[in-house]
Every structure is written in structure tokens, then in C-alpha cells.
């Protein structure tokens, strides 16, 4: 998908218009596809086990989705710019511990301040990642593979053998994931709003569109005058900040935090993003798709539990889904390129 960068465009030729329609149709198919898979999955599981559609289970799935959907939002911005952020799980872990620990160290600390601290920790690491990737011209894979373990290591040095337990956390904090409005968790509504904002930003803001341009063709983006370094730094900072906030939510949800919190979350998040139709090569995909991907993964997770299948299967299933998703995307994009070439040949002659 080519992002539109110029305000004024030359009028489209019929061939261009039809190829644009084709591209849009195919990518819409991708998101509809997830919704269909999700619906089928829910229908089949609910048919076998009615408990699956109980209010409490739906709430459970939605709350479980929120952390992954948030992380997927930040990861999507990074992946769209043809980068990857493997450090989200470690950032989440460190933020979860440090923020939850605040309640014990400073009793009576206001909860919003704790969220700000989490956001700050995450944004700090995100900026470090972004500076090294953009300024150091080092592939983000290497940088964030290193920071995944560096951040986790620093976390282990800070935490030592300690842990925060739920009884040191105020009820107002641990109650956040439990609050509901009309049966829908507050948290799910808040996260949906954040995702809508993220989707609007990527779709309609110039700097959001520029992330797509960078991911589609970095060289062309540079020649078009897009400040690549700045945009990539911003994407990493957002991804880090979101992981920081997600860490605070993680602490609120699970209550007990030690140095292993969020371990290997990055794999699930990348799976959600890719299953949600964000191209791992960058340049295409949407935040909504990624959030749907996260919803699908946690639905599957919950379904296995409800159906009594051992959760030792879950990792293999996620890995398989990731491979399946990138393979399908690749096949679609090859077919699409062929179709576009055929069409433009038609239009030309």
C-alpha cells in the first residue's frame, strides 16, 4: 500500500484507480479474515462448552487482551517503519516491578502518578532503543535483542530475589482490571479508545503516514525529505512508553511481581501484530488489525483452557500461527503484485 504523502495529487488514470481499489480490497480482506476466524473460533468453542460465553469469561478474555493489545499498538508503529522492538516484555517487567514497588516505598502515593512513573520508565528505554537504532545505524533486531536481555538483567539486579506481593498494593489499584461498565471492563473501553486514537494518528496524521512511507521504501522516504531518524525514534519511544504503562497494568492485574514479569511477551506481541496483518517487512498494516490479532490470541488461549487442553500447547500454536500468517501474507502479496502488473499492462496498451 502506497501512502499518500503529497497534498495535491495528479488526477488518477483509470488503471491507477482500479489498481488502488484492488489493493484496498485485498487489505480489507485481511482484516475481515481475522474477524471471520475469530467468530468461527468463538462459535465452535461456545458450541462445545457453553461456559465460554459466560459474562465472567468474556470479561476475563477482554482484560487479558488489553495488555497485549496495548503492546501490539506500540509494536505496530515500530514494525510499520520496518523495524522491530523485541524489548517490550523486559520493559513491561521492569516497569511492573518498579511501579508496584512504589506503593510499598511511598504508602498513599496517587495511582495516576504511578502510571506516569511507568510511562516514564518505558519511554526512557524506548528512547534509548530509538537513539541507538536511528543514531547508531544498527539494525533494530540486534539493538532490541541486546536491550531485551540488558533491561531484563538490570531488572534482575534491581529486584534481586525480592518480589512485590498483592497485599502491599492498594485496593483502588488492584481493582482497576475488575471495574466494569454494563458488563464491559473499564480497562477494555479505555484501551479501545487508545487504539482508536492510535489508528487515527497512523491513518490521518502526516507523521503517521510517514512511518508507512519509511517502511515501504526507506530510500524513497529519505529522498522525499522525511526525517527518518526522528520518526523511527518516535515510534520506539511510543512503543517503550506503552510497554511501561502496560507494566503498571500488569502489576494491577496480577498483584505479585518479581523479576520474571512479562518474560517472552515480545513473542506473543509480535505474533499478534503479524497475525493482525501488519507486514513484517514494514509499510503496511493497521493498529486495529493488530488489536484484533491480540484479541484472537487471547481468545484461543482462553478457549484451550475452557476446552481442557493443556496450556503447554499454546506456545506451539502461536508459533505456528505466526508462520502461517507471514506465509499467507507473502502469498497474497506475490499474487497482488502479479495482478497489478497484469492490470497495468492492460492499461498501458
Amino acid at each position, binding site marked *: 500500500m502506497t501512502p499518500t504523502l503529497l497534498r495535491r495529487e495528479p488526477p488518477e488514470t483509470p488503471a491507477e484507480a482500479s489498481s488502488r481499489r484492488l489493493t484496498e480490497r485485498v487489505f480489507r480482506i485481511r482484516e475481515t479474515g481475522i474477524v471471520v476466524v475469530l467468530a468461527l473460533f468463538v462459535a465452535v468453542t461456545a458450541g462445545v462448552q457453553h461456559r465460554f460465553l459466560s459474562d465472567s469469561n468474556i470479561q476475563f478474555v477482554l482484560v487479558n487482551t488489553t495488555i497485549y493489545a496495548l503492546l501490539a499498538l506500540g509494536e505496530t508503529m515500530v514494525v510499520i517503519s520496518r523495524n*522491530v522492538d523485541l524489548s517490550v516484555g523486559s520493559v513491561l517487567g521492569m516497569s511492573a516491578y518498579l511501579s508496584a514497588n512504589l506503593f510499598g516505598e511511598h504508602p498513599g502515593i496517587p495511582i495516576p502518578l504511578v502510571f506516569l512513573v511507568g510511562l516514564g520508565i518505558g519511554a526512557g528505554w524506548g528512547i534509548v532503543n530509538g537513539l*541507538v537504532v536511528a543514531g*547508531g*545505524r*544498527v*539494525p533494530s*533486531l*540486534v*539493538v532490541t*535483542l*541486546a*536491550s*531485551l*536481555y*540488558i533491561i*531484563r*538483567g*538490570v531488572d*534482575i*539486579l534491581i529486584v*534481586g530475589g525480592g518480589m512485590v506481593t498483592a497485599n502491599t498494593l492498594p485496593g483502588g489499584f488492584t481493582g482497576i482490571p475488575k471495574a466494569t461498565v454494563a458488563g464491559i471492563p473499564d480497562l477494555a473501553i479505555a484501551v479501545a479508545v487508545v487504539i482508536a486514537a492510535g489508528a487515527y494518528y497512523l491513518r490521518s496524521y502526516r507523521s503517521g503516514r510517514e512511518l508507512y512511507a519509511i517502511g515501504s521504501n526507506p530510500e524513497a522516504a529519505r529522498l522525499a525529505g522525511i526525517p527518518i531518524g526522528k520518526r523511527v525514534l518516535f515510534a520506539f519511544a511510543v512503543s517503550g512508553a506503552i510497554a511501561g504503562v502496560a507494566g503498571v497494568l500488569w502489576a494491577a492485574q496480577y498483584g505479585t511481581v518479581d*523479576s520474571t514479569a512479562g518474560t*517472552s511477551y515480545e*513473542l506473543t506481541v*509480535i*505474533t499478534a501484530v*503479524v497475525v493482525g496483518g501488519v507486514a*513484517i*517487512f514494514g509499510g503496511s498494516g493497521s493498529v486495529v488489525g493488530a488489536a484484533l490479532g491480540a484479541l484472537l490470541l487471547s481468545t484461543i488461549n482462553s478457549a484451550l483452557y475452557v476446552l481442557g487442553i*493443556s496450556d*503447554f*500447547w*499454546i*506456545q*506451539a*500454536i*502461536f*508459533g*505456528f500461527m*505466526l*508462520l502461517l500468517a*507471514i*506465509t499467507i501474507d*507473502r*502469498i497474497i502479496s*506475490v499474487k497482488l503484485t502479479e495482478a497489478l502488473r497484469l492490470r497495468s499492462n492492460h492499461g498501458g496498451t
Partner: protein
Amino acid sequence: MAPDVDLAAVPPGPGPSGLEALRARAPWAFRWEAGLALIVVIIGIIGTAASPEFLTSNNLFNLGLSNGEIAIMALPMTLIIISGEIDLSVSSTLGMASCLLGFLWARGWPMIAIFVVIALVGLAAGALNGLLVTRVGLPSLAVTIGTLTLYAGVAEILLGPNTVSNFPAAYTNLGVNAVPGTGGAITYSTLIFAVLAVIFGVVLHATPVGRSIFAMGASPEAALYAGIRVKRIKTLLFMVSGLVCSFAGVLYTFRLSTAVANNGVGLELDVVAIVLVGGISIFGGQGSIPGVVLGVLAFAGIQNALLLTNFNQEASGVVAGGLLLLSVFGRNAASYASRLRARVPALRRRTEGPAAGQAAAGSQP
């Protein structure tokens, strides 16, 4: 600059040209490997000075024990990275093999049959990586993140929460005893690493296949047009990696006498760190096996030095990650310097002669 320049022909001058003369005379001194060798020697000297234990056969044995498997896995990883790809699934291939060993042993299979199955599964795991990368055309980063998850998932399915540890002593001794006749300094994993390093070194540096691997890493298109079977060779490299990593899993299991689902989790960082510390370019096309061997020594030396201090071993990821970043920055140092010169006018005037200025002016339309 050609290496055979006569030293007398180089005009004597201050600073830079003296350095260039040295570079002309002894280009090897400017190689990454030379710097790394120096670092390894320095680590050795500091280590010996700090602790009389450092160069004892006992300590060397422990070094080999704790780094054997990752050193072995670094060899196929070297070839894969030089060819322009990456394999992040090495650690979970190791874990999958370890669980397979435990799973089949607990069911009473004979060890030889288990080895055959592990070899086949390792080859298949590598082939899946290779085929998805070369035939479907997917980036190896995405594929091997997927198989990293998938193979670790298979390990979990095989053993679940169980542990298998009743392996016969004849095998577990291979993991914890020294090779006879080496004064107790060399572990079996060290010996295997040494043999494999020679084989991989010869293949990479002295055969047409090795040249092809460098060529496809430097420019996949040019390699393809030159008639190199890029896809076939890359698939084979991934298969070799799968095979080697699954036998690293066997060694790992025998060393710990335990097969458990989370065996090997996180080792991919150490493997990638060693390879990049060894001077392999992450962009492919550059590097050498001797460099990686030095990388293993540097990595093991630093880990060992930390072991002798009070550093929390669980946090060793800080060190491996830091080494990884440092080595990538180190490789980029030259390009940073030139970018800095381009940014800072004072530096540019000093380094650019009038000829360079004219060339730049002439290139402007």
C-alpha cells in the same frame, strides 16, 4: 590502498600518513581479529594477575563446560549471518532436541535410535527455516522468531512440566568429564567445538561453497547472476544449523543430566553476541571463523571474570547484550567518523585535499 606499497614511496608526514604507512605495510594489524586477539590476551593477563586460578586446567575446563554448547552453535550461525540471514531459533532447537531426548529415553528407546531421531528432527527444523526463507521468500528474522516460538512450544508439548534425569552415567559423563589425556583441561564440548571450527573454517575459507556464502551475503542478486545456487546453499546452511544445534542440545542435556522444557531459553543472545563480537558483519558478506573462535575466547573470558566477582549470574544478559551492542558499534566506527567529518566543517577542511574538493564540485550538475 594496496598492501604491497613500498614504504619508501609513502611521503613522510605527521600523524595520519604514518598510520597509513603502517596500514599499507601490515594490513593484518588493522583487522578486527587483530584487535580482538589483543583483547583476548589482555583478558588473559588481567585474569591471571587477578586470580591464580584463571589459567589453571581446572578453570579452563569450567570455561569449556559453561560455554561449549553456545560456542558450537556459533559456528553454523556464523555461516548463516555471513550469507545475509539470521537464525534466532537455535536456542529452541537445542531445547526441542533436549526434550526429545528426555521424552524418548523415558519411553525406553535405545540411545542410538534417539540420536537418529534427533538428527532427523534437527535437519527438519532447519529445513523448515530454510524453505520458508528461500522458497516462500520470507525474511529470516520473522521466520526464525516464529520457529523460536514453535520449537520451544514443541519442547513444552513433549515434556510439559516433567523432568527426565535418569540418563545412564556413560552418557552424562561425556557432559561433565574431561577428555582423557588432556590434563583435565578439555571438555568433550571443547573438543567437538575445535573439530567443528576447523571443518567450518575450511569450508568457509577454502572451498567454492565458502566463497559463495560470502558472495551471497555481500550481494544476493550478484551472487544469483553469477550462477550461485543461493537458495539451495542457504537452505543447507539452515539445515546444518538445525543439526548442529540439536546435538548441542544432546550435549546440554548430558551436561546437566536433565531434560526440561525450558532448557536453552535465551541462549540465542549469547550465540549472536559471540558471532558479532567475532567480527562478523550483521549485514552479511564479512567475517571469519578465526574471528569467531577469538570471539568465543573473549566472551568466555569475560563471563569467567564476572564469575570470579560477586556479579549476579542471572543478570549476565547485561554483559552479553552490552558486548553485542559494542561490537556492532565497533564495526560501524569508521562510518561514524566519516559522518562526523561530513557534519563538522573544521574536520572536513583538514581531511579533504583540494583534489577531493574538485571531485565533489565536479559531481554537482
